[in-house]
């Protein structure tokens, strides 16, 4: 009897292993055709930890020169004096963008690495994306022919150097010495606010010179973007306690009219097994009222595209933001308007906190000015290489869905 059981267990194990191997891909040696994941290595990441900002840019420029890569290094011009490059106030650092692809094409894609200076890991993600797009391959050639890509590895050089984030005054002054109480940054003291929200300030003069220079660069010099991606990571103290090993979270910045938005806010996301079953059964009942967001947004182009990107990331075997976090949130709800609301698994939308108060984030701003699609991702506390893989996979998915027109179910 015991032997039989052992034999059965062995056989089952083999079967399970075969299934897992067939679906899962070893990403350390994998080249998807768009992005080469084998470029990500730990020693390179370790080097990034200590080096100053100009050295980081120099190294990248050196790689581009040695290999004769088709990447243009374009510095951002000053807003007030457009003949000169923008320079930061104390140290004189410049902001650089890496341009790739066909400048005459109508697909203008922007990839922003570190909006907040402290989140440095995604500037390396940006470089990996740029380098892997320069490799040979039919898909890459097609992408570079049909699109013009601008990569901004570090939007805030001083914050990058100091490993903090910038806060902006109503006068347009920036500080990287936020008032800190109990390890938490007080944001809105005397009108200091986060840089991501400064892009969308109603008054032009209240924006800082750096923000205005970047805005002008993307809207006028590069051409109004059609797709804007910004990559974020969570580095706040103690985030690992709750968000440890969480996957990619995708935030869609699509413009919905006010009426539609109110409807979406009143609906809910099918979270539990019972709710999911109910949602499936509702399709057969024509008289049922609207209850779930996924029912309402079905076949919406922006929603479907985001869903297919998420499915692609899942297909590679990479974790996406799981439902368990939302389940905890529903069990212990925090009173207060929500900054983001869930519309599907690992897909979120800007919530009533931003909408009602009229706070406009950077992707929202570009969307408002040029009608582009805005997306941000959040990667949570886990190993650095894993965060880079997640960011790169997201860009991989977006390039496939937006430029090559693929769809993943």
């Amino acid at each position, binding site marked *: 009897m015991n032997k039989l059981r052992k034999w059965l267990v062995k056989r089952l194990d083999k079967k399970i292993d075969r299934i897992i191997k067939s679906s899962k891909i070893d990403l350390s040696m994998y080249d998807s055709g768009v992005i080469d994941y084998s470029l990500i290595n730990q020693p390179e990441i370790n080097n990034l930890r200590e080096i100053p900002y100009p050295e980081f840019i120099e190294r990248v420029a050196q790689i581009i020169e040695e290999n004769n890569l088709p990447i243009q290094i374009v510095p951002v011009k000053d807003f007030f004096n457009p003949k000169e490059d923008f320079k930061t106030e104390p140290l004189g650092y410049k902001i650089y963008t890496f341009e790739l692809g066909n400048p005459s094409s109508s697909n203008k894609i922007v990839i922003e690495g570190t909006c907040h200076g402290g989140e440095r890991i995604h500037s390396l993600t940006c470089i990996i994306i740029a380098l892997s797009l320069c490799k040979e391959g039919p898909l890459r050639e097609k992408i570079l022919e049909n699109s013009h890509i601008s990569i901004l590895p570090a939007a805030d050089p001083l914050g990058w150097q100091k490993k903090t984030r910038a806060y902006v*005054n*109503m*006068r347009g002054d920036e500080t990287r010495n936020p*008032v800190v109480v109990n390890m938490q940054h007080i944001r*809105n*003291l*005397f*009108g200091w606010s986060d840089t991501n929200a400064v892009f969308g*300030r*109603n*008054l032009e003069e*209240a924006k800082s010179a750096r923000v205005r220079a970047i805005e002008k660069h993307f809207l006028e010099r590069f051409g109004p973007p059609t797709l804007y991606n910004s990559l974020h990571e969570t580095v706040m103290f103690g985030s690992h306690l709750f968000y440890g090993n969480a996957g990619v979270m995708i935030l869609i910045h699509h413009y919905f009219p006010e009426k539609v938005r109110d409807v979406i806010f009143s609906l809910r996301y099918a979270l539990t097994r019972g709710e999911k079953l109910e949602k499936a059964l509702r399709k057969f009942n024509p008289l049922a009222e609207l209850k779930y967001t996924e029912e309402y947004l079905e076949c919406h182009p922006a929603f479907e595209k985001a869903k297919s990107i998420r499915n692609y990331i899942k297909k590679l075997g990479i974790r996406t933001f799981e439902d368990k976090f939302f389940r905890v949130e529903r069990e212990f*709800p925090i*009173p*207060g*308007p*929500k900054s983001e609301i869930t519309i599907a698994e690992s897909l979120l939308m800007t919530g*009533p*906190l931003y909408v*009602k*108060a*009229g*706070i406009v984030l950077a992707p929202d701003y570009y969307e408002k000015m040029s009608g582009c699609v805005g997306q941000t991702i959040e990667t949570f506390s886990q190993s650095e290489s894993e965060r880079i893989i997640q960011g790169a996979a997201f860009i991989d998915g977006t390039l496939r869905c937006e430029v090559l027109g693929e769809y993943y179910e």
Partner: protein
Amino acid sequence: MAKIDLYKVWQKDGYTLVTHTDPIFFTDRLVRNQKISRRRESLEIILNVEKIENYLWEVAENSPYLDVVEEDGSLKIAPRKKISPEFEKNLLCAFRDTFFQEENITNQYLLYQDLFLYYGRYRFGGFYGIIHKLFPLVFIMRVVKGYQPMVWQMLIVDPYFLNKTKEKIISWYEEIEEGAEYAFSNITLVQKENLALKVLNNIVRKNKGKEGFNIASKLCGRLGLGFLKDFYWVATQATEDTEWDIYKKPPVPFTLWPERKSE
């Protein structure tokens, strides 16, 4: 007339505007907006300055849009003619970035707090959930006749009444939001001389790079501008001369009498 006070405070190298944006004043602001929505009042923003400057007179005299009115020893800038849409837009943008945004956040925040209390009770595991609803059955099964009226009241909860309370909460906040929006489209600006502010600004200006902010933070309470203490206290971190020099002095000895030296 609804009012908002703004204080023109001198910092290291220029003026900033400071308001009573403290969580304690949430309720005051809510009431103000509610009144505005009911009475259709216009909003008056009072700019507290050290000295009313003459250039305001000149600007107003030359401009076709503004008119200066003197009331109770203070200068008032009132609209003479309808301002150009561009200028109006710019002005509104400035206020939307500061007051309008913040006011809406606080309204929304309090709304959700109230609704949270409401929803929590009627959800599955909540106070009016299935378990608590069955609680009166205990009394019925025990057959204590005196409890019967209370039991039936607990069992049959009027759904219409519940709906009404929810709607009341929402409508109350809708009124406030509407008031905020109305107020920020009808603004008049008033300039007012404030002597206490002048004293504080002079202290900070004269003791530049020294203990100016420290002195101001200690003095502002006595001058009637106590809410500025938070502002100055934070600014003390930027002073060049630190308070920590006291530790450079030789410490006070543990024994009050000198120790006897060995002979």
